[in-house]
């Protein structure tokens, strides 16, 4: 079985948002939304810090679809538009999405974004990888682990992984014990977010 996932080194993440923009570019994500966001842990402002000056800490947490093994979104999608593919990724078939937003209510990570209006693309043309479908208004979208890009060439990795200036992201097959990702997950005591929700994400984090 293939189980594609990612592990993110939070000690390396500097919160630069390069991954957010890389994803936006590669997947032609409209303005006003991002598939991948970089959050500042423990504070409500971007680049804030936890604590009172000068006793401060800060961790940046990049957050996108966790490609859960037990996805809450897939359970509730009435048309099966959200599905788990044969490589272990959670994907959306835009043609089947009826825009009920049940998946959005179910996702504990707020990983999904909805096209409430006509998608506002700036620039005004399709950016990124040519085979990424253009989503119409009224459908849901989210991180696809750059499905089209990665399926086109096995050497390809998701754009966020390629562009991260800190090399904080590792991508690979969690079911392959010899893969770099499997080794790192094991060695670094990597964890998943919101473990209590039982979704078993395939995106891991370590410090």
């Amino acid at each position, binding site marked *: 079985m293939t189980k594609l996932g990612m592990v993110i080194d939070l000690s390396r993440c500097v919160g630069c948002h390069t991954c957010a923009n890389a994803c936006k570019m590669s997947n032609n994500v409209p303005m006003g939304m991002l598939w991948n966001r970089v959050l500042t842990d423990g504070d409500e402002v971007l680049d804030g810090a936890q604590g009172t000056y000068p006793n401060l800490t800060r961790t940046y*947490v990049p957050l996108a679809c966790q490609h859960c093994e037990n996805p809450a979104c897939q359970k509730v999608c009435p048309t099966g538009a959200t599905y788990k593919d044969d490589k272990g990724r959670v994907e959306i078939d835009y043609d089947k999405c009826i825009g009920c937003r049940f998946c959005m209510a179910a*996702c504990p990570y707020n990983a999904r974004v909805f096209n409430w209006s006509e998608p506002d693309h700036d620039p005004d043309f399709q950016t990124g990888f040519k085979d990424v479908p253009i989503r119409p208004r009224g459908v849901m979208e989210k991180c696809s682990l750059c499905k089209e890009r990665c399926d086109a060439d096995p050497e390809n990795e998701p754009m966020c992984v390629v562009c991260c200036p800190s090399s904080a992201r590792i991508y690979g097959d969690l079911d392959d014990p010899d893969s770099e990702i499997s080794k790192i997950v094991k060695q670094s005591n990597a964890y998943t977010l919101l473990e209590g929700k039982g979704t078993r994400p395939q995106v891991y984090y370590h410090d």
Partner: protein
Amino acid sequence: MKSMKKSVKIALGVLVVLMAIGLGCWICQQTFGLGITGMSNGTSWGLYICLFLLFVGLSAGGLIVASAGSVFHIEDYEKIALPAIVTSLSCILVAGALVLVDLGGIARIWRMLTGPNFMSPLVWDLCVITLYIVMNIVELVFLVSKKEGAAHKQWVASCIALPVAILVHSVTAWILGLQIGRDWYSSIMAPLFVVSAMDSGLGLLILALFGLRKGGWFKVPDRLFSKLAILLATVVALDFYFVFCEVLASAYPQEEHVLQTLGEMFFGSTAPFFWLEIILLVVSFIMLASKKRRQNMKIVGWASAFVVVSVFCKRVWLLFSSFIHPNIAYGPGISSGSLSARLSSGDQIWAVTSNYAPTLPEIMVALAVISFGVTVFIVLIHKLLPKYKEAHADQVAELAQETASERAGK
């Protein structure tokens, strides 16, 4: 329609106007997207779903009373079966329509039929609501039929309809209650919804019966109202109990995120709705608790209205409180896609907490759907009541007589 009273014609006129405006707004919504509503990536369900929850409850309540009456041969309840089922049918049609207007891609809804995901509570809801509507119609058909054996067939239908009615609201509850990702996750969500369906549905039914009596179309004696009021009072108490259990279970572990949500309910943006519900539940219970007050139709009427409002409040805080604080709420938050975010630009697209208020087009669409329900109610009553009176002349006459003697006795 010639036989309609002038006041009814005027009412219908207003309803048609409301429906027309709402339809126009819905067309805008189809053209420009759900972006014209107040919903966002944070609060992704709004007025439509909130009212959907309310109207499913309003419908199930009426039907439970009517069907229970049939199944268990409770005469008094059997006598009000027609108005009860008409109310139920009108409400469930409203509920169904509200889900449809909420969809971002209604053109693809056929996908639910070609590839339904049976794990999804929405698919369950589709099935069970469809069945429920069918059962409503079947019961109505048999109720107005003068044919031999219609009554028995109606009884059979009731035996099916009763559990379906309970199931309808349970399934609707499970849309929220099974989601581990939100603070709705609770095992008593289904019983809570069923109970609030009963008290709100009953409350609406009482108000509908008052309306029909006032207009002279269907006479129901005070005694029957008082009897319904006992049932209402009991269910109100149960409702309060369930809410209390739910809040206690949420609050006790003092889990940080749940406390944030509770904070909104007690002191924050959904607090007005929470406290109004509690107050109205208590007040209506007190109003209906004494026999003497139950015999005061004004009090019964107001109490019923209060219960409906209180359940509407419940739908509001129940649905919206859990949207306010994302589980992972670090700065700058979620890319909200909200109305205000869409009208601005740059770094205004973020929201750490999500707020919601319906927009005018959204309200007009909801009003249109509700108007549609009221219209269905008026039309069905107008069309079916005469037939029912023919088919159940004795029962109707009994009620009318009792009502008259009550009036004489005063």
